[in-house]
């Protein structure tokens, strides 16, 4: 715990400011000094300056924490996804991205974030919705039930993949399968993460039913949309 806090300067600074503020406030509450100029200055530090510093650094640290896989995986319904990402033998698309040293610990966010102009806000608003859904609908759901019931809200956008894999590079276009579907990939008609290409993204991803497919005799429940 201590080493983790020391390793993160933002958190260390925030906790240091909070501790300083708490010491001054406890002194004030216990000693009950008269409201002199000195007391006012001490309280300005204890109620204003130090908590403001704690909130500012804490907010930055909090926003960074929301990008990490352990944050996403802290809701129990995400446990299989987290475990798969952390499995060094898994060859699922998400797990392979999790092994990328540049963003591996934040692989959920890297692939599910919106990269538009207001992308961060849109992503955070979506995260608030996830928490609402979790608290009010999925909190007591079993993993098996969650795996069958929870699905991605809208189809996964190729634009997210193209944030890193631009489809413009010669090495990407040198692959003949890429060249043959270039327009369909850029237009979003063919998902990068579809089965047969680079998908499924997670071992539990369910294939998107093809529009021309005949209905099966016993259709599966509303399954996860293939990202």
């Amino acid at each position: 715990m201590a080493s983790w806090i020391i390793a993160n300067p933002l958190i260390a600074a925030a906790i240091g400011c909070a501790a300083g503020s708490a010491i001054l406030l406890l002194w004030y509450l216990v000693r009950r000094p008269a409201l002199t100029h000195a007391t006012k200055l001490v309280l300005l530090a204890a109620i204003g300056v130090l908590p403001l510093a704690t909130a500012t650094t804490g907010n930055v640290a909090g926003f960074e924490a929301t990008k990490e896989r352990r944050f996403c995986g802290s809701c129990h319904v995400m446990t299989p996804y987290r475990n798969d990402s952390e499995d060094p033998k898994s060859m699922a698309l998400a797990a392979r991205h999790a092994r990328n040293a540049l963003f591996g610990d934040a692989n959920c966010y890297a692939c599910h974030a919106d990269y538009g102009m207001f992308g961060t806000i849109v992503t955070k608003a979506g995260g608030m919705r996830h928490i609402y859904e979790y608290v009010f609908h999925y909190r007591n759901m079993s993993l098996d039930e969650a795996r069958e019931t929870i699905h991605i809200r809208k189809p996964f956008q190729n634009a997210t993949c193209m944030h890193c894999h631009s489809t413009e590079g010669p090495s990407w276009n040198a692959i003949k399968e890429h060249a043959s579907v270039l327009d369909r990939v850029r237009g979003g008609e063919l998902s990068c993460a579809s089965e047969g290409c680079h998908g499924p993204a997670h071992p539990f991803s369910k294939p998107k039913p093809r529009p021309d497919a005949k209905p099966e005799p016993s259709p599966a429940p509303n399954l996860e949309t293939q990202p």
Partner: protein
Amino acid sequence: MTALRVSALLTLIGLAFMVWSMIEPTPLPVMLAMSVGQAFGTLAFAIYLYVVVSALRRDYRRVRPQDPS
């Protein structure tokens, strides 16, 4: 003075939320810190400002010579 003690207690509660969110960065603590914790902190600071500004105005009136009219 009671208002300032309330302000100090609110600050301590707000700080507790914020520190909890940093020690355990999971959805509930982070959301509570960024909403309830900050609301408590803001309210506490508003109370402090009100008390201090009121005291300063009182002192100013006491020191300032009374208007003869």
